[in-house]
C-alpha cells in the first residue's frame, strides 16, 4: 500500500509538473494580454515536432534550446501579423482567431510530418535511472522535466514581479495608454509576451513530446485539460496554475490506480445492486476508467463553489 502510494504520488507530481509546464505559458499570455490562446497546445505540439526534427539534424542538447526559440519566433509572428489585426475587435475575435489557428497548425503538422506518430523516443543522453524507489527506477528525463518545470515557475515569477520589464508588462495590461505615453512600446511588449508564452509552450513540447505520443492529434489530447487548469487555478494566477496542475496530476494518477467502483463500495457495506437496477451502469463504473473525467468534474464543481478559481482575484 505504501509502495503504491509513494509511486503514485511521484508519478502524480511528475504529471502535475508536466501540466504546469503546459499551462504556464498560457497563464502568462492570459494574465498579461487577456487573450485566451486556443493555439497554445498547438505550439506545444510544434515544439515536440521541432525538437524531434532538430534532434535528428543537430543532436538533442542544441535542439532543446532551438525548438523553443523557433516556437517563440512563430509566436511573435502570430501576434504581429494575426492577433494584432483583430485586437481592436475584442476578445471574442482573438479567441476565434487562435481557434482557427489551432486547426491550421494541426493540418500543417500533418502536411509536413504525416498523420502517424513520429518515433520521438527519449534521447539516450537523458535515458538512465536517476534513483530507485521500491524497486522501480525513476528515469532521469522525468527528473529533467521536473527541474525545467520548477525553473519555469521561478523564472516567470521573478520576471514579472522583480524586474523592470515585468513592471512594464503588467502596466501595459491595465494602463496601455499611460505606459505608451511614458515611452514604452506597448505593441512590442505584447509581441514579447506572446513570444515568451509560445517559447514556454515549445519547451514544454520538447519534454512532453517523448512522454506523450508525438502525432497531429497531440494538441487535441492536451488542449482542453490545460484550460481546466487555468480556470481552476484562477484565471491568470501563476501560483494557482501550479497548485491546480499538481492537484489534477496527483488526483488523476491516484484514480488510475484505483480499480474499484461504487458497486464494490456498496457491496462492502452490504448493499447489493443487481444487474437489472437502472443505476447499475453508473455504479459499475470503475474509478480508474472515470479518471479522464476528473479534471472536468473539478471544473464544474469549482464553478459552483468558487467561480473565480483557487487563487483568482478578479472576475473576467
Amino acid at each position, binding site marked *: 500500500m505504501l509502495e503504491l502510494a509513494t509511486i503514485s504520488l511521484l508519478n502524480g507530481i511528475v504529471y502535475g509538473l508536466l501540466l504546469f509546464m503546459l499551462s504556464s505559458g498560457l497563464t502568462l499570455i492570459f494574465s498579461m494580454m487577456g487573450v485566451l490562446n486556443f493555439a497554445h497546445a498547438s505550439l506545444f505540439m510544434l515544439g515536440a515536432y521541432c525538437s524531434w526534427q532538430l534532434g535528428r539534424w543537430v543532436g538533442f542538447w542544441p535542439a532543446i534550446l532551438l525548438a523553443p526559440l523557433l516556437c517563440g519566433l512563430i509566436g511573435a509572428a502570430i501576434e504581429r501579423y494575426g492577433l494584432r489585426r483583430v485586437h481592436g475587435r475584442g476578445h471574442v475575435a482573438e479567441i476565434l482567431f487562435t481557434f482557427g489557428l489551432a486547426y*491550421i497548425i494541426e493540418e500543417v503538422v500533418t502536411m509536413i510530418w504525416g498523420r502517424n506518430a513520429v518515433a520521438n523516443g527519449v534521447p539516450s543522453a537523458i535515458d538512465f535511472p536517476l534513483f530507485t524507489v521500491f524497486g522501480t527506477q525513476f528515469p532521469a528525463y522525468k527528473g529533467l522535466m521536473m527541474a525545467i518545470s520548477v525553473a519555469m515557475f521561478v523564472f516567470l515569477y521573478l520576471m514579472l514581479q522583480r524586474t523592470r520589464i515585468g513592471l512594464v508588462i503588467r502596466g501595459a495590461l491595465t494602463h496601455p495608454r499611460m505606459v505608451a505615453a511614458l515611452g514604452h512600446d506597448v505593441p512590442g511588449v505584447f509581441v514579447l509576451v506572446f513570444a515568451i508564452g509560445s517559447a514556454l509552450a515549445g519547451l514544454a513540447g520538447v519534454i512532453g513530446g517523448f512522454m506523450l505520443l508525438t502525432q497531429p492529434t497531440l494538441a487535441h489530447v492536451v488542449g482542453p485539460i490545460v484550460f481546466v487548469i487555468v480556470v481552476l487555478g484562477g484565471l491568470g494566477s501563476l501560483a494557482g496554475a501550479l497548485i491546480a496542475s499538481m492537484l489534477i496530476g496527483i488526483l488523476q494518477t491516484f484514480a488510475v490506480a484505483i480499480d474499484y467502483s461504487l458497486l464494490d463500495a456498496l457491496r462492502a457495506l452490504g448493499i447489493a445492486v443487481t444487474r437489472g437496477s437502472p443505476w447499475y451502469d453508473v455504479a459499475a463504473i470503475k474509478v480508474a476508467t472515470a479518471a479522464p473525467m476528473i479534471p472536468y468534474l473539478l471544473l464544474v464543481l469549482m464553478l459552483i463553489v468558487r467561480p473565480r478559481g483557487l487563487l483568482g482575484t478578479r472576475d473576467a
Partner: protein
Amino acid sequence: MTDAGVAAPSLGGRTTHAHGARDRRVWLAVAVLVVVLPHAPGLTTDFGRSLLTQMGIAIVFALSYNVLFGETGLLSFGHAVYFGLGGYAAIHCMRAINHGLPLPMPFVPLAGAAGGLVCGLAFGALTTRRAGTIFALISLGVGELVYAATFLLPGLFGGEEGITASRTRALALPGLDLGSQLQVYYVVAAWALVSAAAMRAFTRTPVGRLCNAVRDNPERVQFVGYDPQRIRFIAFAVAGLFAGVAGGLHALNYEIVAADAVGAQRSGSVLVMAYMGGTGSFAGPVVGAIVLTWLETSLSAYTSAWLLYVGLIFIAIILFAPAGLWGIVAMHAPILHTRALRRVLARYAVALLPGAIMVAGAAALIEMSYRLSTQRELGSVVKLGPLALDASTPVPWIAGAAMLVGGLVLLRISARFVAVAWQAATLEARGGGAP
C-alpha cells in the same frame, strides 16, 4: 451593429409593416425552393438529396448556435453536447417506436427537442452564471465531460459504436414510410423550416430583444431591472432545444448516434459554420451551414487536405471579413442602385485573376506536400485539374511558390483599386439616396 443582430441588413430602414410583408414573401420563396430543390437537375440522385438533407440539419444546428453567439453574445465551444444528447434522446425514442410505441416516426425530432431542452436547462443553470471568456472555457469543459461520459455508460450511449435504430419499422403512415432519401429530406426540410421560423420569431420577442441587449451592454440591462443571467439562461435553453431538434433530425437521417455527435469536432464545426456565414444576421448561419456542408462533402472527395482549406478560409474571414460571407453580400445592398456598382464589379473581376493565381499556387503546394507526407503509396504525381504535377521534381514547387507570392502581391495592388471604386460607390449611394 445593434440592429444587425435581429434584422437582416437588407431590411434596414423600412417600417415594421413593410418588414412583415417582405419577410412573408422571403419565407414563401424559401418554402417553394425547399420543395422544388430535390427535383432540380443534378440533385435528383440519392447523393444529392442526402447532401440537401445534411444541409437542412446543419442549418437548424447553426441557427440554434447563433441564438447563443450572434444574438446573446455567448461564445460556446460545446454546443454539440445538446445536439448529441438530443440525438441520443431521439434514437432511444426511435428504438421504442421499433418496439411498438405508437408514435409516428416523423415526430421523433420532438424527442430530440425535449432532450436538448432538458440538458440545456440542466447545464445552462450552471454555465450561464458567467459570460465572456469564462463561459467559453466552461462550455469547453462541459463538452469534454459529456464526451468522456458517453464512454462510461455504454448502455445509454453505446460508446464508440453508438446506438442504432430503424426509421422504417414503425406505425405505417399513408404515403410516408421514410423508405427513400426523398421522404427523409422532406421531413427534415419541414422541421428545418418550422425551427427556423420559430427561432426567427424568438428573436422578435421581448426576450429575444433583451438577449441582444445583454450581448451589447449587460450592465445597462441590469440597471433597467432585468437579470442578465436569467436572460442568458433562457437563450441557452432555447439554443439547446433547437440543437436537440437538429440532433433528432440527425438520428432520423443516419439511424445511428455515436459519441462523435457530442464531440469537440462537431462543436467546432458549428462555430465555424455560424461565423463563416456571418453571425450578425439571420441568413448568415444558414449560408454558413450550406457552404460548410458542401465543402465537407465535396472537397473531402477531392483532397485529404480539406480541413486545412476550411481553416484557411475561416482565418481569412476572421481577419478580413468579420461580418461573414453573408455580411459581404449584404454589404452591397446600399450601392445596389448606384451607377458606380458596375465599376466596383469590374474591379472585382480584375482582382479575381491574381486571387485565382494565388489560390492555385497555394493549392499546388498544399496538395504536393500532403501527397508526400500522408499518401506516399499513391506515387509522387499529383493531379490538379488538368495538370499532373510531379512532386519529386523541383519545377512544380518553384512554379507553385511563384504563383502564390506573385498572386498575393498582385492581389494587394488590385485590392487598392477595388477600395477606391468602393469608396466612390458608397459616396454616390449616400449622396443620391437621401431624400
